[in-house]
């Protein structure tokens, strides 16, 4: 299988080492704790192991068997076949972090291109090589802002309309900074407030304001005025994006964002039950030395040929140790590659087309659902491909009924917001046909009467 040693080879090697047996190699391990009896199932052959996981996988229902209207941070998009064909190349997936640039130019140039594509999409100057996911990228924005002000500004403002899981992650990441307060998303704040309510909480102690675009409820706001006000008190603005929406929408770089973070999963990465995904992190060039995570830069070799290296590494944990602002080592290499391939394939017109398809189908769905007695659209703001529907019954019950019709219903907002009981967040993508949307409406109609 994976261990190639034959008996004669093993004997020869032990002899070269000067020991009699494999056991002799482990004399430093305290005898009382050596060779525990592990209660694990006996080894399976590849054929049996594959049969076992296949049967586990078949105990799930998935987004191709069901009609999926579930989003809330992870989206069902089409992934062109070429993406996975390239990801399966051992040259990419069995390599590690490009520590030796002369034999890692493939990974390095791919990351460099990923960085370029992300700057193009977000309208920012620079992008790092990626973080773990949208949640940790958001948390890293908080960490960066805290250190940028050297701990002298102690407030981060974040509204409830930012993804609840991102807010939770941010709070975990910053729990060690005792003097820092994360405010704006208290339980009494109306989750559907417009972002202007943040204005009166801005002060000279504010380090960072984090908003989402489109927000967790799918709404699109123009943050120009907010960004201006934030900059007037000397603070930074981070915008959490859905990168796919930027195929259509104005990039946050245009309305004054200092940091753009987001979940890269919509760009060619499978749902995969929540991970691995891709944390996008882009900013302005003046903050290049302040960001965490790997960066690839262009340079030349001794012969003058163009090449790429990991750069500004003195910011990172292996050099700065306890003075580093983040402990991140790796990036999300293979996922960054997937999104670079996806963006290259779709290109300028393809990404716009997918974003428009999402927009059009979501608006058709919203229009139709809004017309069903008992259902209403409770948000009156422009939206991208997700919207909030107020249901006549508990969302879990509605979804149970939808599931009987083979439909994976929307997200139950009552799980995160007590004031949004009976509110469902519906996502529509290019994958949903008109027929499927009509089917959803029919099924919803059935739950409205009784």
């Amino acid at each position, binding site marked *: 299988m994976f261990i190639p040693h034959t008996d004669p080879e093993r004997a020869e090697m032990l002899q070269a080492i000067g020991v009699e047996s494999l056991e002799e190699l482990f004399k430093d391990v305290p005898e009382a704790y050596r060779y525990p009896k592990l209660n694990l199932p006996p080894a399976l052959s590849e054929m049996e192991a594959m049969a076992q996981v296949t049967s586990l996988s078949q105990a799930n229902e998935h987004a191709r068997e069901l009609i999926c209207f579930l989003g809330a941070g992870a989206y069902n998009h089409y992934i062109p076949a070429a993406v996975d064909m390239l990801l399966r190349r051992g040259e990419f997936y069995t390599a590690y972090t490009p520590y030796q640039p002369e034999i890692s130019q493939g990974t390095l140039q791919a990351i460099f291109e990923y960085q370029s594509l992300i700057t193009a999409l977000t309208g920012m100057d620079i992008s790092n090589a990626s973080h773990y996911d949208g949640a940790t990228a958001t948390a890293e924005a908080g960490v960066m802002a805290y250190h940028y002000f*050297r701990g002298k500004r102690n407030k981060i403002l974040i509204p409830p309309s930012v993804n609840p899981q991102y807010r939770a992650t941010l709070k975990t990441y910053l729990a060690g900074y005792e003097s820092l307060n994360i405010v704006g998303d208290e339980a009494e704040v109306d989750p559907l407030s417009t972002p202007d309510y943040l204005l009166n909480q801005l002060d000279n102690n504010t380090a960072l304001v984090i908003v989402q675009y489109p927000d967790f409820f799918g709404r699109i706001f123009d943050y120009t005025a907010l960004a201006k006000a934030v900059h007037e008190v000397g603070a930074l603005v981070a915008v959490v994006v859905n990168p796919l929406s930027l195929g259509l929408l104005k990039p946050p770089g245009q309305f004054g964002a200092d940091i753009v973070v987001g979940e890269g999963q919509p760009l060619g990465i499978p749902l995969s039950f929540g991970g691995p995904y891709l944390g996008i992190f882009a900013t302005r060039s003046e903050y290049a*030395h302040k960001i965490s995570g790997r960066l690839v830069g262009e340079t030349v070799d001794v012969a003058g040929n163009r090449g790429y290296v990991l750069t*500004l*590494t*003195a*910011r990172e944990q292996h*050099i*700065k140790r306890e*003075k580093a602002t983040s402990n991140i080592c790796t990036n999300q290499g293979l996922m960054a590659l997937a999104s670079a391939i996806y963006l290259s394939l779709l290109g300028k017109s393809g990404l716009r087309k997918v974003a428009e398809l999402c927009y059009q189908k979501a608006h058709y769905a919203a229009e139709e659902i809004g017309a069903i007695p008992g259902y209403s659209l409770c948000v009156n703001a422009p939206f991208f491909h997700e919207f909030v529907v107020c249901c006549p019954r508990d969302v879990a019950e509605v979804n149970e009924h939808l599931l009987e019709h083979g439909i994976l219903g929307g997200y139950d907002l009552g799980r995160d917001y007590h004031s949004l009981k009976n509110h469902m967040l519906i996502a529509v993508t290019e994958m949903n046909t008109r027929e499927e949307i009509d089917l959803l409406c029919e099924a919803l109609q059935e739950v409205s009467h009784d």
Partner: protein
Amino acid sequence: MNTPTNLKYSKTDEWVNVDGNIATIGISDYAQDQLSDIVFVEIVVAVGDTVKPGDTLASLESVKAAADVNCPVSGKVVEINEALAQTPEVVNSDPYGKAWMVKVELANTSELETLMDASSYEKYCAERSH
């Protein structure tokens, strides 16, 4: 290694040049050589700040290393070398001249006595070079 005799040196490799009650501070030739090619200098204090020994004055990054510049004296910052941000390489080429970093108005001149003179500093560097 160049160690001008008119300067005082700290254990963390800063040099101090005293003129009246103004101390000019930078890093030594030995320190720049250890760090190799400096690519980034950030002075983290501002004019008017009060500083004391051990406070961080600046952060330096080379391709392979990072270091903080510590304040060897107490007093008030009266001038900082803003040009360094654009020309970090002068820390390597001219550590005692163009690469001065911060000027401090001294609050306590007796602190200078805790610093080393050039010959003790050279000895101190030689000990660490093994």
